[in-house]
């Protein structure tokens, strides 16, 4: 039991950069390219960790603290999230609030580190980030509330474990709505298309990437790794709602969970290949829409 609980954080720490590789390969396949190696994110991290650093003269200690607090916060959050049927390392009622607010802490420090550079580009990214996340947060918590009511518990692990195939037979619309809302939140929080395009190199249109323009070397490695972890965690959250728990067998669970994670990455890659990024003015509508879907799911559950 205890050993199995170590697996979700372990997989998150080891495999999260691989998700980016899968997404990129999917996009390459759609575009008819060979694409970068699957392990490119690991090479990037390794390279960055071995570089020196350049800091802006404008910045203060806040700029250097940003990546530290961000990565530490998301690493702590990793302890709270189950992977498929594997329970999280730490589970208690209300851990989903702590999870959401740890991501909030990460965002807070990323944003003030961006503002510390005094660059208008980074200010722009920061401003968009806080707007979109403020709208994504209610959607996330309400969506989780709907499944929490069904599960009769408000701990992430319990929610994941108590949604069985039977729940899908009984309340499929609720789970589908929650799933859609969570996927939108996942895409927005991780700066993926249709909210943000991680590939663009035009500062004016970016959100997350533009906030970290001035980071370099190990700091940037921390940020990239933190972003990969965040993608993994929100993906695992989507998975725990969408994939019903299957019961006992550890190996089967593991295979389903990992298959689900990389399937999700495949899905993100497909979305990025077939969709364009939305105009920034339309993004709030998408997020409010996700919140509305989550509320509808909640009302359906209330009956």
């Amino acid at each position: 039991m205890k050993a199995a609980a170590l697996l979700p954080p372990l997989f998150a720490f080891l495999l999260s950069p691989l998700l980016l590789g899968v997404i990129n390969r999917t996009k390459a396949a759609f575009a008819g390219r060979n694409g970068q190696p699957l392990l490119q994110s690991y090479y990037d991290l390794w390279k960055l960790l071995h570089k020196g650093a350049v800091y802006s003269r404008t910045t203060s200690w806040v700029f250097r603290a940003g990546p530290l607090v961000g990565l530490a916060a998301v690493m702590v959050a990793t302890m709270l999230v189950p992977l498929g049927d594997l329970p999280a390392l730490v589970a208690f009622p209300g851990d989903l609030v702590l999870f959401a607010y740890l991501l909030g802490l990460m965002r807070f420090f990323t944003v003030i580190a961006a503002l510390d550079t005094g660059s208008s580009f980074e200010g722009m990214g920061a401003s968009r980030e806080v707007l979109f996340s403020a709208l994504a947060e209610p959607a996330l918590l309400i969506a989780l509330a709907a499944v929490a009511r069904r599960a009769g518990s408000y701990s992430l692990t319990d929610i994941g474990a108590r949604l069985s195939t039977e729940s899908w037979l009984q309340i499929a619309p609720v789970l589908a709505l929650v799933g859609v809302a969570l996927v939108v939140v996942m895409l927005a929080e991780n700066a993926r298309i249709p909210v943000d395009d991680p590939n663009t190199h035009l500062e004016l249109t970016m959100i997350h990437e533009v906030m970290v323009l001035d980071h370099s070397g190990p700091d940037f490695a921390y940020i990239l790794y933190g972003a990969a972890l965040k993608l993994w965690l929100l993906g695992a959250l989507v998975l725990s709602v969408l994939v019903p728990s299957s019961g006992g067998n550890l190996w089967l669970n593991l295979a389903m969970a990992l298959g689900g994670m990389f399937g999700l990455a495949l899905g993100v890659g497909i979305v990025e290949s077939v969709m364009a990024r939305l105009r920034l003015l339309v993004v709030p509508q998408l997020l409010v829409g996700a919140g509305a879907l989550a509320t509808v799911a909640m009302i359906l559950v209330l009956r």
Partner: protein
Amino acid sequence: MNLLLLSLGILLASGLAALLLGRRGRDPSWLAAAGVVAGAVLGCIPAFRVVLGGTVTSLRLNWAVPYGEFHVELDALSAWFLIPILVLSAVAAVYGTEYLAKWRNQKSLGPSWFFFNMLVTSMALVVLARNAVLFLVAWEVMALASFFLVTFEDEREDVREAGWFYLVAAHLGTAFLLAFFLIAARETGSTDFNQWATAGTWAPGTAGLLFVLAVIGFGTKAGFMPFHVWLPEAHPAAPSHVSAVMSGVMIKTGIYGLFRALTFLGPPPIWWGWVLIGLGLSSGILGVLFALAQHDLKRLLAYHSVENIGIIALGMGMGLVGINAHAPTLVLLGFGGALLHVVNHALFKGLLFLGTGSVLHGAGTREIDHLGGLLKRMPWTGVTFLAGAVAISGLPPLNGFVSELLIFLGAYEGITGPDVTAAVAGLAAMGGLALIGGLAAACFTKAFGIVFLGEPRSEHAAQAHESGAAMRWPMVFLAAACAGIGLFAPAVVRGLTPVLAQLAGGSPAFAPSALTAASHVLSQVVIATLCLGALILLLALLRRWLLSGRSVTTAVTWDCGYAQPTARMQYTASSFAQPLTRLFHGVLRTHERVNKPQGLFPPGASVATDTPDFSHGNLYRPAFLKLNWALSKFRWLQHGKVQLYVLYIALTLLLLLVWKLR
């Protein structure tokens, strides 16, 4: 009780002494502040004793006022509010000694300190009083003392106007309270709170009426939207240590009043809970939205007080719904979260106002868009302001997260419970709180980021200097208190038991086990906090090890190859908030005056934004203009001729005589 009376005595005596000694050129600050600190220490001893479960003490003295009695009592509820009042006042008084020093040669500081000490005394008396007349007297002294404190810089017209505004708002609120107490006294034939509490049953209509009067009367002081209009006017006008006390604890006397009223209004019907949840949502969400649109740091903080009062109201409303739904956990977590947020908000809002005062002191302006880069010039203010900003955004590991987590836990408890009403209440509170949290983080990344980070946007900001020790240490103390409550959250939450027992103990919906469960959750949170700290340290060491021996250089911020970046090209508070104000234009109605660049060689362009208060402009202003118009019809009565006035008096007396003889 003796210690408490001694404490009040010292507060009054030191205020009087400061008034007598403080003529122009002489500084009575240390005397008055020492009095406040001594009074606070002495008063906190019995208050802590009661909060930790000690016996309730009371004192009754005869008083020559009709229907009045000097009846004071220190029970758990009073003590819970008394502690933040005394602590924050003491800290603010120490801060004030340095903050007021620059006016030493311009005006006499004696009256200001006298009213400060009066304000502290009256706030203490408000939470102690058990007699309606005594309560109203203390309430009125509190309003007047704070009015004179707000108008400290009475040579400035905007300050006089703000003071006037505040005075009218405070008295309108008091009018509702007067009605509240009169009706309650008529129904029970007594003016004693304890008799009301034991009187038992009210006619259902009366209890509802009393509740509405209490919500409006106390809500005006607390700052529920839409009764909040005085906050964004009065807080910026007052000296910063006064703003800290007013925003941190004085508005909480409104919350205290509401809690106290609930103790004697009998079993609450469910609509009371919905009213408070509704007010909480409107205050919380609109408060933080208006805060986002502000450029004046103190106005921004004032709107955040509205937001935090909203969070407190959400907790209270959830508790009331819980009582009706027989969901004891909901009651405890809702009321508990609200009560803890009262203390937490006192700490971090006090801290933020003191930090703003320090900015005003060091850089000479509160205009966010004129500041920038202050963290390097004012390191202490910057770090403590950051702590306050993280705390008020409700982020772990500081105290704001603890109280918001309690309300979240209550909400989820309601959502997962069997009762549908409780689930709807929980959903409303949870969704509102999540939105408020996200927007508050947006607002405080803006406030901290634009003011303290980047490059200075003006000459003032470039030449800013750090404040002295008497202003620094109070901020450090408050920041440490915010962290302390975060770290010792499980113990603090267990400390809520006596006051919650007092509030909900009578009803069957009281089960202390819920608090134990909550403190277990919080101990997990504390462990997470410790892990977070350890990880930050590890990652920092790793980075230092990786960077040792490699090239670490400094350069300009990445500027896209543009050769001449200036500080004016930075994002400003207005541009940072613009997407949000655009999105919520329906409620905010931000005025934009844009002078766009035109032609091939544009000579100059400008943009100015302004977000006036919605309910001020659309509700109160028209109403008061109508009132003014109606009353001006009676102007013919007033000629300024004394003989006529004497005639009026004589006629009135005659009429009264006839009426009596009739």
